[in-house]
């Protein structure tokens, strides 16, 4: 994935050596929206993790906060720490129990959040999901920055964040590892690229997707666990966010899964090369042809 909004990006002059973090005077306040998803914990795959038809058996896997969305939440909370008075609003889509994601955010320091839930939202691919989220964000209205995880561990598409930005006409920076600086007009981040990092500055408002290599999220907080346990997560339907039902859920999803296959690598697919110069040259050529090296 490349920087989508390259024309708007500025690379700061001083990127060599250690980065001196000069934050804006903490007079600014930002409204931050965090996109998060409840996912089956695919890190705990057991024998019954898949259904016979190749889909995920969600009942067999615990539902968890998508890991990279936690990295995103931490970036949002760090902005709130740095700029007191800023707000962090969680936004998620899913069944009723996905309210847990909003509560998890609240217990870590988010101010509140919304759950998009409606049978009409069900079965959404990334296009329908990003449409639904963008309608909810429009309804929330006031925001300076939207932060989400790079991708969810169930679909691994990394498409929802960028699509939300496109639908809202926002600048976006993907693969963010750290927010270095913010002021009322712009945000400067460090993003991960192959073989290194780059520093990117973008005007606000914008959308960031955060990489798993970013700072881990802080734990839930005891005072918030007790003090905010009665927070009632507002649930929004298709009608609440003025969405077009045709663009939501299954009917709004052009993606059709044709087949899911279980690939098992076998030793017979391997190639053997000898130790002489000719064989080594052939090995290198093969690796170069497959773009594994070079």
């Amino acid at each position, binding site marked *: 994935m490349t920087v989508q909004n390259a024309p708007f990006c500025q690379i700061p002059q001083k990127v060599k050596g250690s980065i001196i973090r000069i934050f804006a005077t903490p007079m600014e306040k930002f409204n931050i929206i965090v996109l998060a998803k409840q996912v089956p914990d695919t890190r705990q795959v057991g024998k019954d993790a898949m259904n016979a038809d190749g889909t995920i058996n969600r009942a067999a896997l615990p539902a968890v906060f998508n890991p990279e969305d936690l990295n995103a939440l931490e970036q949002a909370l760090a902005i709130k720490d740095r700029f007191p008075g800023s707000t962090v609003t969680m936004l998620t889509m899913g069944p009723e129990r996905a309210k847990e994601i909003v509560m998890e955010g609240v217990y870590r320091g988010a101010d509140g959040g919304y759950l998009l839930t409606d049978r009409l939202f069900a079965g959404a691919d990334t296009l329908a999901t990003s449409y639904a989220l963008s309608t909810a964000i429009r309804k929330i209205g006031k925001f300076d920055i939207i932060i989400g995880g790079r991708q969810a561990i169930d679909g691994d598409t990394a498409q929802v964040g960028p699509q939300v930005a496109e639908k809202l006409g926002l600048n976006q920076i993907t693969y963010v590892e750290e927010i270095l600086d913010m002021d009322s007009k712009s945000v400067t981040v460090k993003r991960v690229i192959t073989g290194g990092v780059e520093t990117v500055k973008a005007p606000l408002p914008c959308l960031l997707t955060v990489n798993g290599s970013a700072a881990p999220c*802080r*734990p*839930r*907080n*005891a*005072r*918030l*666990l*007790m*003090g*905010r*346990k009665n927070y009632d997560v507002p649930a929004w339907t298709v009608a609440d966010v003025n969405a077009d039902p045709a663009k939501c859920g299954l009917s709004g999803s052009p993606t059709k899964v044709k087949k899911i296959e279980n690939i098992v690598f076998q030793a017979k697919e391997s190639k053997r090369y000898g130790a002489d110069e000719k064989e080594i040259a052939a090995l290198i050529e093969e690796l170069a042809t497959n773009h594994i090296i070079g």
Partner: protein
Amino acid sequence: MNNYKDTPELSARMHSPLMERIVELKENFYAEAGKYDYAPKDLADAMDNFDRVLELTGSVCDEVIAPNAESVDREGSHCSGGRVQYSQGTAQNLKVMHQAGLSGFGLPRQYGGLNMPVTVFSAVCEMISRADASFQNVWGLQSCADTINEFGSPEQKEKYLKMASNGATMSMDLTEPDAGSDLQSVMLKATEDVENGCWRLNGVKRFITNGDSDIHLVLARSEEGTTDGRGLSLFIYDKRNGGVNVRRIEDKMGIHGSPTCELVFNNARAELCGDRRLGLIKYVMALMNGARLGIATQSVGIQDAAWREAVAYAAERRQFGRNIDTFPAVYQMLAVMKAKIEASRSLLYETSRYVDIYKSLDAISKTRTLTPEERQESKRYSRLADALTPISKGMTSEFANQNAYDCIQIHGGSGFMRDYACERLYRDARITSIYEGTTQLQVVAALRYVTSGVYSQYVKDMLATLPDSESKTAISAMVEKLDAMTAHVLDQKDTEVNDFCGRRLMESAAYCVMSTLLLRDSIETPDLFDKSLKVFLDYSRSQVEGHYSVVMSWTPESMEYYK
């Protein structure tokens, strides 16, 4: 996995019938509901809060503290330029525990604390110790703030309690090269600096756990020319003022994550806490009781960790074509380990509950006059807590050593290698029966309650409330033996005989008390505790009968063989 969720035996201990009284007192009849969003409005609300905080701690233990334990043990703490650097893992543990909002755990909300009862604090300490016993020292010492809360001035409370709730670390600086068990010999000199309105501390402290902390409580000699405990006062030292340097840290056998420091006080600015001359005889005594309960929690955590390691290994290790946990020699050891844990928990949490009741009543007595019934209640529970604390500390720490030993035994040769956690547990356990008063000193503290019949009466009173059963009969028989041993020893009218038989008497009393409390817990939750009760009764009977047969045949002349 979560250290709380996987231990129903622990959550069962949080749901004692006494909790209703504990919570209403600790919450001063829910006076703060509505004033703070995290103050409970009733018992159910409070119990739900405890559950949430314990579950949170369990996840921090499981996700952060336990995974760090091995590297913390290997890396240890460092000392350079007079300052201590925690191992990376310990530093991370502290950061995460503070982010989780678990600082100021028992302190009043007005100082930013969570106002949690001692009973819940004990459960948190147990879980932390199971994950990494050394971290319990660093984190658990925040309870030193309770002493400032109890005896400090309003200004000191405002300053130091808020610091503690904000994650400041603490230490209690008592021991000196020539004053270990005998704290009356403390020589660190405190001189009043009238001009600057403070005190100045000069001298050396040794074996100070977490000695480079942010806030120190220091026992020092304020009365020139005195040589006993009545010349000692308690001081608060704020690290930011400077004047105390760490000369070295000890190279220890275990609990490597907990830095043990030698401190040099060089005209260090300090504040007097409470009244002069009461340092040892009042404040440190109160501090030590809390610290002893803390070691009991640490001991139970280690016992539990050792048992789990042993169970897991025995279930996987195959010899002679069978998993070794199918051999009587092995499953018997595992059952005894588990029984010791449950008997320890029954005692630890009952003691914690008594501490909660009298301390909460103490706190209320500062805002209004207690009713005669409340005064009576406070006195009763304070006395019981004083009686149960030395046996809690003494027995649980010995059991921690025994479980750690058995854990290695079950691992066989592999347990002697550093590849398994059991060798760390073995080293970490060893200090529990030494610091905050050796087992031998716990015997001294417990002996007066044995000879005055407090334990015996306590057990009889409780048994009278429980339905008849074989277990109850077995305990009654043990108490009869305890009474007979006590009478026999007292008949000798020789204090040396008392001391000589002290360990056997204290242990016998402790087995009676622990069996009774476990019986009661087992009646409340049989699924969890019935087996452990039966196993512990077998173990207790063999111990008490052994002590009985020796003590009853003893005469003062018997001691001569030992000299």
